[in-house]
């Protein structure tokens, strides 16, 4: 796979709002890796789990518009960093491929809207691009500074590795662990790495959502992790935003930074704290200040 392949970036709504640090760190990391990346013009929201809960057809049509727009640009790789966006786009491709009735409706819609027919657009996730297109060895070589002695748990969440298993193994994913180790992080065992955080439940059935995130944080702590690394804006938000509430409810001293994989990789490659959105964390601010003060020139940090 040629590393010069042009990536089309599908931000989704979260990466323009609560997940802005993911966008910042993603673009910085790609710049440092010299991977050309461009935002999909006039993209629309993918609809996520909500639209699927209301109408399968409309949800598929929404996704199809994005795929058609991608096709219009001539690029082949559509990069969806959000787990929910990734899955929604992938799922609509599967529905079109396997159900002629849906394929027909998509075709009709694209024609009415004056959009090109769907073609071989590949929906990609950031984790998969870093692992497959860049590679662990190359990331190791390009690392200019290490967060030595810092222990982190990698949290994959659900909707990227499941159900299709193209981003990583759906049962026992390891790609994020390998990347983190390559850039100098100590990765701890973490059995809950694909256990769902509840997604939008923190906003809807709040108590249950917060409880799920408490379990994820507590287990990471028990394994000795000082921070958790994520690959989805909603996973990051859920784990980051409710720690104060969890402290109040449980009395446990949880105050843990929740990163994006691209923030850690981007830092290792020499990115700047603000360019990587590291100043946007809600929890674990003290540790973040302590860890990310080293200059690029300094070899290591203990």
């Amino acid at each position: 796979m040629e590393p010069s392949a042009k990536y089309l970036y599908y931000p989704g709504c979260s990466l323009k709002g609560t997940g802005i640090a993911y966008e910042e760190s993603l673009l910085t990391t790609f710049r440092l890796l010299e991977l050309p990346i461009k935002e999909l013009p006039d993209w629309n929201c993918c609809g996520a789990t909500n639209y699927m809960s209301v109408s399968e057809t409309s949800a598929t049509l929404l996704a199809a518009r994005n795929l058609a727009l991608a096709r219009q640009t001539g690029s082949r790789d559509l990069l969806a960093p959000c787990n929910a966006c990734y899955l929604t786009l992938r799922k609509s491709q599967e529905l079109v491929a396997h159900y002629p009735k849906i394929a027909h409706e998509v075709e009709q819609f694209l024609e009415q809207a004056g959009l090109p027919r769907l073609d071989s657009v590949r929906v990609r996730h950031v984790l998969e691009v870093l692992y497959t297109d860049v590679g662990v060895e190359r990331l190791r070589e390009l690392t200019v500074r290490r967060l030595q002695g810092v222990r982190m748990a990698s949290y994959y969440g659900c909707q990227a590795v499941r159900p299709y298993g193209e981003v990583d193994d759906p049962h026992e994913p390891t790609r994020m662990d390998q990347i983190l180790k390559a850039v100098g992080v100590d990765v701890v065992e973490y059995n809950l790495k694909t256990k769902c955080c509840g997604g939008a439940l923190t906003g809807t059935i709040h108590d249950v959502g917060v409880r799920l995130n408490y379990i994820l944080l507590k287990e990471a702590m028990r394994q000795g992790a000082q921070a958790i690394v994520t690959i989805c804006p909603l996973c990051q938000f859920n784990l980051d935003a409710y720690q104060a509430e969890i402290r109040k409810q449980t009395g446990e001293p949880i105050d843990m930074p929740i990163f994006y994989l691209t923030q850690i990789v981007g830092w290792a490659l020499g990115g700047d704290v603000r360019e990587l959105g590291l100043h946007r964390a809600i929890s674990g601010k003290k540790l973040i200040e302590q860890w990310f003060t080293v200059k690029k020139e300094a070899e290591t940090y203990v």
Partner: protein
Amino acid sequence: MERQIRYQREADLEWAHRFTQHPGCERLLSCIQCGTCSGTCPLSIYMDITPRQVIAMVREGFRDDVLKSKTIWLCASCYACSVECPQKINITDVMYRLKREAIQNNVFPKRFPIPVLAQEFCEMVRRRGRNSEFWMVFRMALRSNPAILLSMMRTGWDLWRTGRLSMRMERIQRVNELQYIPAATKEVD
């Protein structure tokens, strides 16, 4: 749990059959009731009926019980059950299909926020092409449970001071292309 259906003649026996016509639900009838789905589901302990029970009840036509359950709204679509099911039943898609039927038939608990959120969200996306997180959550809270606005304030403040709260009403340029997407609520799935 209170049963809505007491006699077999009240059960909708055709229902399971209609289910199997839908994408992802084809293998429903081959469930062996092993319980792997319930054991895997991170939310089953909060559910009123477990995923295994959902499959059994759909198969036997307990339509009202299933559609009125909290279970279908607690399902976060994480696909854990689906990848573990030994019979390769896509339980996640079955749950999606149940949510759609509940919304279309207006059979969910009153002031229960999730179906409201889903509908608000779809309307916003269909009209503007984008989801404005802030406005959506705000409108949902007003319609379902204004009391949670208070508890949302702390989170809102945290997001604001870290520059993560965008209050812009987002909109795509070529909104006209979206008019060909059918209004979700009118669809009979």
